[in-house]
């Protein structure tokens, strides 16, 4: 065996043996000793962004989200109670072994972040969406979104923050509420969205993505 081969093998063995797990840089989702902040940075950030401002509209923005709402969703994923496709495809596995303390820590981490608007929408749609958000659609029996989600879409406890959320994500979730029973904790939204047209959803989502927020 050549010296270079022996050196290479020894180097790999040394690295393997020497690399001790650092709890502050772990990606182990089954170790309750890993701090929530570490999991947020090492794992969650891959899709939701280091500061909760996800780049891809496939993944919701979590920055400044209501802490209580994040806790409820993570527990919903963990128990499989929340079963929308993207929920079980991505989040059932991520959440399956998290402790209550880790869930609380993750919620605290993301709720403390500052939300950044993803970008402007179509002005006509935005104006139409603003009307729905502020006044609802009385003729269709749709109440104003602001009633529960706050005047500035900031949310309140179990009612999520919707301001600055990706419009594609909002449309997807409104569709889930309207057409499925995959989010039983959001049953109130089933009635709210019952008579929303696709155009209504697009409008309100466009407004939420860029709405003036606090």
């Amino acid at each position, binding site marked *: *065996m*050549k010296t*270079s*081969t*022996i050196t*290479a*093998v020894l180097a*790999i063995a040394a*690295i*393997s043996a020497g*690399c001790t*797990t*650092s709890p502050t*840089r*772990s*990606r*182990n*989702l*089954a*170790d309750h000793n890993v701090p929530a902040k570490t999991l947020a*940075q*090492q*794992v969650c*950030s*891959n*899709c939701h962004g*280091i*500061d909760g401002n996800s*780049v*891809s*509209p*496939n993944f919701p923005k979590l920055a400044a989200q209501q802490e209580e709402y994040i806790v409820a969703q993570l527990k919903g994923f963990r128990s499989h109670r929340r079963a929308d*496709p*993207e929920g*079980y*495809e*991505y989040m*059932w*596995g*991520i959440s*399956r*072994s998290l402790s209550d303390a880790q869930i609380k820590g993750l919620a605290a981490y993301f709720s403390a972040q500052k939300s950044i608007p*993803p*970008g402007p929408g179509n002005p006509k749609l935005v104006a139409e969406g603003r009307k729905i958000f502020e006044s609802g659609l009385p003729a269709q029996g749709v109440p104003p979104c602001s009633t529960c989600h706050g005047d500035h879409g900031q949310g309140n406890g179990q009612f999520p923050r919707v301001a600055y959320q990706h419009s*594609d994500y909002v449309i*997807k979730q409104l569709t889930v509420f309207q057409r499925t029973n995959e989010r039983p904790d959001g049953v109130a939204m089933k009635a709210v969205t019952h008579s929303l047209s696709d155009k209504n959803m697009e409008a309100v989502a466009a407004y939420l993505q860029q709405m003036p927020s606090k």
Partner: protein
Amino acid sequence: MDIDLHESRGAWDSLGLENPATADPARRTLAMKLGRALVAAVAACTMASLLLVAAPQQAWAVPSFARQTGQNCVACHAGGQFPELTPYGRMFKLTGYTIGERSLPLAMMAVLTANKVKVNDPAAGKPEDGSPIFNTASLFVAGKINDNMGGFAQITYNNYDSQDPNTNAWAGHSGSDNLDIRYADRLIDKHRDLIYGLTLHNNPGMQDVFNSAPAWGYGIVPGSTGVGDGATPMLDGGLGQQVAGIGAYAYWNKTLYAELSGYRTGDGVFSFMTQGNGGQNYIKGTNPYARLAFTKEWGAHNIMLGLTHLDVRQYTDQTNLSGATDHYHDNAIDAQYQYLLDPYTLTATATDIHETIDYGTAGQASDTVDSLRAKASFTYQAKYGASLSYFDQTNTLGADAKGWTPEVFWTPIQNVRVGMQYTMFNNDQAGANPNAKDNNTLFFYVWGAY
């Protein structure tokens, strides 16, 4: 020159698998009745149905990785199509396959195929032309080792490994396939994100996380027609499962990826990475590979623009390891674009490789090998998909090939993929038939994993 070691390397040669459609220098006769192709399709569909019944509702491309993360295949593979990685899938690999929780690191895969060449060569026709065959089966040992280490090792049984020259009977054989073991760490906070690591692997490019890497991007199903008999550069699988490579890499702020690897002959203590793949290909000393890629993600879009260099000295006489070497210089530019927004995915890749070969034999003129490959693939609801590939192999070896491969596929559940490809040659200089179009090949496959 030693053309046997260099020509006709389809993408699956890079995985150590011989392509039944092209393993033979000549192709098969058109005398095969259309009915046989039909029987092939029906039989394969039946097998697919059996797989569907037998398969559980959750399984994945490398299912043990998914058992580790608990996630669906679409988390890491665009639209669930193996092996095209999503941005998250790339991060999973770059962080050493360590996300999730340790679980049983075993998975398996099997591929059933059938192919039909437009005009067969009656003198050297293969008995399975037009018939369904059990092509390959793989066992994966794949998973997280600790918080910094993980990897995967694939062992593949190739049912059509070699053919008896007298009886034309095929013999199966098992060999080591892709292998990638990593150490990785990640320094991340609001101001920086640095992933760095080491990788031990056995095929230049298979450690890459981008779909335009030749090892992953084109013709990935065993038995795919690939570029037919066109010559491909060393970077496109020429050293697959023949070498041991160690590389160091870094990915900074999800923007810049840089890697430096070195390859040596996979013998001695490294022979476990190359076992069962026929004769050993001997290269001299440590052969460098460098990779640089720029990436950007915005909204549902992400792009990559990359450069690769590979420099290889291969012994001219494979039995004389103190003799002269043939020197391969490969330079590549590649690009990738992805659009991922439920329920659609679109991935487009292009890879352009230029190779110069300086021979160790005095007086022998240098050769050049150019390869341009591109592919666009689309999926809807992670169930229905289509792709279109283009290849243009131009070289001084007398083995040019140019053509297109449209493909449709269906993923009824994530364990199973059924697809059909048709490779249309505009040029196939080294093919069995002088008229390139006579080498056009229809290819059907059923892929299953658990």
